[in-house]
């Protein structure tokens, strides 16, 4: 007993004394697992990609070429044409998501959060279902639905007398990218819906009740009260959509192949990167040009995300309840 008292005393004595603190090992120990795993899986591959883009291989000899690969990518008309086309297609892909996926996602979330809705959890699950499906299944099923030979789309349209509206959408340059964007919207609509639904649920009842007392109900309540309150969530959804779309690859690859036909009209940065990096059919892969494209993609995404975090997000007004 006495021993412990003296121990405690001496301990409190050191606390008060202005001597150096022991090095705090536990911080490093606690940080280490996350830091190691993150470095091994993210930082090192990323750095390696950046490094790879500064080299070039000719006749099995790898040499440092500085920024030459970037000059080729932007300066050589063949490369730059493919690159700008992929970037534009990607932007279009993103715009469709912003114009279709997110508004519908918000609308669905608003409907789901109506207090007197029946079958709520059924709808919620049903809308979220496609998001959980594998992109392989989604690509394959939609390709089959839209197939002019075996698909159900032509017969359904024929049944309601609109057969003339049907076209081989995935095979036409003018429509293929839009069709694929809408398929992707269908698949991922659940994500904005869920995030915004959660944000809507977190609005306190007092705020809604106060609005009702002031006579703000129905649609006006949505526009004037709820929407401003979920704006931060919408911002988050937008940036997630952006990152997701600019890293997209799977759906296009599954339904159109690595050549992103017809005539590269569905070629986005992801498929362009894949084709360059791994090669396709007789075209051999070029890891260095591929890494160059990957680097450019990384910087595009980095720039937009930084812009969002540093400029946009600070201006969104947040309400504390």
């Amino acid at each position, binding site marked *: 007993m006495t021993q412990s008292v003296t121990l405690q005393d001496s301990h409190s004595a050191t606390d008060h004394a202005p001597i150096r603190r022991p090095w705090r090992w536990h911080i490093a120990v606690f940080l280490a697992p996350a830091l190691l795993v993150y470095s091994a899986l993210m930082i090192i591959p990323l750095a390696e990609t950046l490094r790879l883009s500064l080299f070039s291989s000719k006749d*099995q000899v790898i040499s440092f070429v500085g920024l030459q690969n970037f000059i080729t990518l932007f300066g050589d008309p*063949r490369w730059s044409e493919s690159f700008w086309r992929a970037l534009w297609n990607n932007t279009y892909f993103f715009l469709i998501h912003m114009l279709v996926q997110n508004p519908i996602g918000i609308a669905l979330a608003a409907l789901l959060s109506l207090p007197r809705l029946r079958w709520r959890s059924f709808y919620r699950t049903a809308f979220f279902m496609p998001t959980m499906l594998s992109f392989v299944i989604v690509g394959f099923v939609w390709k089959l639905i*839209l*197939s*002019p*030979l*075996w698909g159900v789309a*032509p017969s359904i349209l024929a049944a309601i007398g609109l057969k003339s509206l049907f*076209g*081989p*959408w*995935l*095979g*036409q*340059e003018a429509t293929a990218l839009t069709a694929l964007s809408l398929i992707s919207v269908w698949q991922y609509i659940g994500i904005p819906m869920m995030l915004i639904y959660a944000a809507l649920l977190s609005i306190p009842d007092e705020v809604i009740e106060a609005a009702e007392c002031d006579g703000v109900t129905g649609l006006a309540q949505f526009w004037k009260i709820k929407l401003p309150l979920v704006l931060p969530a919408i911002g988050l959804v937008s940036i997630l959509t952006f990152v997701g779309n600019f890293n997209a690859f799977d759906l296009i690859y599954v339904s*159109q*192949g*690595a*050549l992103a*036909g*017809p*005539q*590269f009209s569905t070629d986005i940065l992801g498929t362009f990167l894949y084709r360059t990096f*791994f*090669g*396709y*059919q*007789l*075209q*051999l*892969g*070029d890891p260095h040009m591929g890494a160059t494209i990957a680097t450019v993609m990384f910087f595009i995404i980095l720039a937009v995300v930084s812009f969002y975090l540093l400029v946009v997000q600070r201006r969104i007004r947040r309400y504390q309840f």
Partner: protein
Amino acid sequence: MERKTFRAAALGATALVAGMAMWSLSAAADVTLTIESWRNDDLPIWQDKIIPAFEAKNPGIKVVFSPTAPTEYNAALNAKLDAGTAGDLITCRPFDASLELFKKGHLAPVNDVKGMENFGSVARSGWTTDDGKTTFCVPMASVIHGFIYNQEAFDKLGISEPKTEDEFFAALEKIKADGTYIPLALGTADQWEAATMGYQNIGPNYWKGEEGRLALIAGKQKLTDPQWVEPFQVLARWSAYMGDGYKAQTYPDSQNLFALGRAAIYPAGSWDIALFNQQAEFKMGAFYPPVKKAGDPCYISDHVDIALGMNAKGAHPEETKTFLEWVASPEFATIYANALPGFFSLSGQPVTLEDPLATEFVGWRKDCKTTIRSTYQVLSRGTPNLENETWGASANVLNGTETPEQAAARLQKGLDSWYKPAQ
């Protein structure tokens, strides 16, 4: 205490015996060779016919056939070879893709494999270094292009095999007018189908086979010359006879259309024969690409397509060599050519074929001059890659988004940007 020691000793002894048993088992276990391939359609044939025939003769060697999807094969194989996880036997694409693998040291030379003397220089050409000294894959088979047709449809409509371009279009017109069948089973969604079954199928008749192909490599002819543009012009006329929505029609769609009896003519590669034999329930016939005028000499694409090489870093070089020697033997040629009608042996040894359709295809070798696909040798070495560009061009011409002249001009421009023929 004593009992405990005894128990521990017994346990240790058991473990030791078990360990030794396992060790000796693994030592006596068979060597397993893995074949990398893009021919996933052939999996049952390798498993049921080819591999058992080899294993019966070579006890102690097990062979596993492990295919990848055709369009992903090159990329996947390169990645596996770089990582050192590729199989012992590598199925070789012809020309530069495999040459590159050899130069990187992934493929071992096969000059000293017994039986290589059975293959002529044309057969070896797809897998030999530019100086002609080293061959790095054992040639397995070539494929021939032509047209397969639905015999019942032809009989019903009173059409006979077209020999000339005019007869060909007359036949298409007749089938279209009748309306029962889609005249041509061809789609542009996969692009390669348009180029391989379209442009490379009928092209040799216009550019005169090897003559034009070698002149193109030598720089004496250009893709904008009439003999190279004309196949595109003929191709452009095909689109009127292709199925509804052909722009979104994939290669398997085309195969199904024909096999289900909904299309009358299928621009074919001979590798389709096996599938159609299995699935089509009607009688089929075949004709070679129609010539321009009656009496013109005919040319067919008899493309060296597939060979088997040896992973230079494989774990079992001796057993791998044994397998390759067997692949070079007439026994393999006969099994392979008959198990896979439509893949014609490149071996100089005579091979007897049983399949009537395949016999018809291979019979054209007697009547027509043979060539290989124009874009494969040398011309697809640079960027843009002429073969891949030709896919796009053929699909565009069929889709009507590019005129034949524009397509040819674009191809030539792309080729000029990197290819400087030795003058």
